[in-house]
């Protein structure tokens, strides 16, 4: 069993509960043991870093320090949480005086940020730690009849100085996972593009245009569904799909899955168990 600290993303505790639920079904099957960090707090969602850079450093030093206390790497299943926490880590590791200041405060809780735990995405754990062959060996219901559009989203790829796992111009990890589960990836120009999530409440029309572009390509490519490693991308591409497509005058629809659901399906769990029925687009 490989043990990891599991970061609880705000959105997975509210709108996209199916992410954590589906992981709970299959983690043991793949030899994974995710210890949920109930003490963890919101990472700041790519906003706190400019509202207050020092609070941003404190909050995420603490999130990482909680994992370090158990000697575990921190696993994240939301792209923006991943990018945000890794950005803070980079800042802390490169700025000794900031690290010192933050650690003075963290003492109150008996915590210390040392920089020893890695912060990694669930997708990377699946592809790099479990391994594609081990995943293949566990597949009971291969996704062989499905044409799947891989939508990586931004914050698992960019900025590459912070992320660095996949080539941001030609990412492959999600494609590899799809293929290991028996599915067929389709060439998808928008695989490394944006979903528009972060401006949904500030520039809705623009955000929906951005989302519609990706949805349109997936629909035109005759994909059976889109799969994404990010619950924020999922919220736009699924939750806002009808609004985005209506704005772009497109009469069609396409289901959008989380990677955790796709893995669950291939490992033999049902759509009902995995919470797929909670999606807006069925």
């Amino acid at each position: 069993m490989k043990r990891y600290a599991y970061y609880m993303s705000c959105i997975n505790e509210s709108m996209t509960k199916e992410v954590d639920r589906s992981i709970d079904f299959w983690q043991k099957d793949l030899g994974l043991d995710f210890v949920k960090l109930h003490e963890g707090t919101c990472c700041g969602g790519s906003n706190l870093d400019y509202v207050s850079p020092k609070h941003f450093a404190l909050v995420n030093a603490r999130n990482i320090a909680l994992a370090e206390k158990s000697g575990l790497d921190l696993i994240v299943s939301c792209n923006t949480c991943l990018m945000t926490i890794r950005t803070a880590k980079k800042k802390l590791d490169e700025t000794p005086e900031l690290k010192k200041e933050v650690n003075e405060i963290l003492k109150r809780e008996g915590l210390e940020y040392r920089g020893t735990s890695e912060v990694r995405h669930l997708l990377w754990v699946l592809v790099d730690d479990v391994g594609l062959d081990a995943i293949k060996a566990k597949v009971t219901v291969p996704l062989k009849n499905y044409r799947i559009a891989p939508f990586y989203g931004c914050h698992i790829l960019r900025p590459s100085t912070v992320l660095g796992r996949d080539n941001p111009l030609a990412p492959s990890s999600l494609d590899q996972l799809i293929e290991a589960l028996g599915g067929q990836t389709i060439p998808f120009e928008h695989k490394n593009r944006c979903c528009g999530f972060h401006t949904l409440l500030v520039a809705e029309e623009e955000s929906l245009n951005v989302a519609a572009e990706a949805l349109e390509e997936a629909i035109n490519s005759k994909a059976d569904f889109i799969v994404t490693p990010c619950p924020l991308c999922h919220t736009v591409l699924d939750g806002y799909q009808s609004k985005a497509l209506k704005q772009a005058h497109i009469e069609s629809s396409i289901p959008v899955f989380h990677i955790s659901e796709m893995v669950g399906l291939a490992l033999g769990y049902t759509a009902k168990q995995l919470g797929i029925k909670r999606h807006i687009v069925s």
Partner: protein
Amino acid sequence: MPETIDQYQEGKRDVTFRVFRFNPQVDSKPYFDDYTISAERGITVLRSLNYIKEHVDASLSFRAFCQAGICGSCGMRVNGISKLACTSQVWDELDKCREPGIIKVEPLRSLPMIKDLIVDMDPLVDKMKHYSNWIETTMPLAEIGKKEFLVSEKEFHRYDKATDCILCASCVSECSILRANKEYVSPAVLLKSYRMNVDSRDGIHDVRLSELVKDHGVWDCTHCYRCQESCVKSIPIMEAIHAIREDAIECRGPKDTSGAKHAEAFMEDIEKKGKLVEATLPIRTNGMVWTLRNLLPMAMKMIVKRRTPPPPPLVKSAKGIKVFRAMFREMTEHVKQDHLKSHKK
């Protein structure tokens, strides 16, 4: 020696450039022309285009000047990515081709097309003007030319990287929001605005900032980092955008615009619960009327699917919230001290 032959073969090969063509005076729609030339290892995309223009097709049009990554004239999309043709090695591009051996060359996006690979830079220049991206000196007219304007090394470092921008418009071409709305300020303009706003010699910071926070301004950036990733000078453009936002909240307050309110909500929620209260985020960002008008139909669907975020009282605080809150507030004191220190200076 066979080794030499291999090296020779590796050092020279036929490469096809699939180039976007469009002359609005003649063509009803754009098309692609394939030019196959014998290219040597070490040759750039720009040199290949020059060769094609000189020896194969003189009608091919593109902009170029310095051939050394300095002037920013030859911004174009090579194999789908906006970059400078003069610093793009053909051999590197061969590894990135969708179709083996065929390098696709297209004009930048999000700017009006003039001919073939040439786009109209005027909309970008107009935006630079609109956001007053120059220094309006604080020095009295009588002193100009007579007195030195000293800039500290520390200050210089704040905009050192930003001044590396050569206005090639690669970031403009890659920007997600500009693709969605041509009125958007665009990353290059934001970078330049940041650079001017942190310059102590400039006297129109407030005027510039008041324009930047309006519609299509700094708050419309969707944090996709495509600008930064495509920057040919590796300038951290997003840091500049975030810095403008930080400055906007500090100078104009957290209730100034929907963007500021949205950002500030994260700070409030984290201090209070350690978790984001998503249910009220739209209301706190845009008010009740906007929320009802824009989100009600979707909220109904979400209720049916049991996907709605929980109302504030039901959002569970992170475990150990009391200690966390105390630490958060301790940091607030640190930040206050920092502000006092910087104002004293």
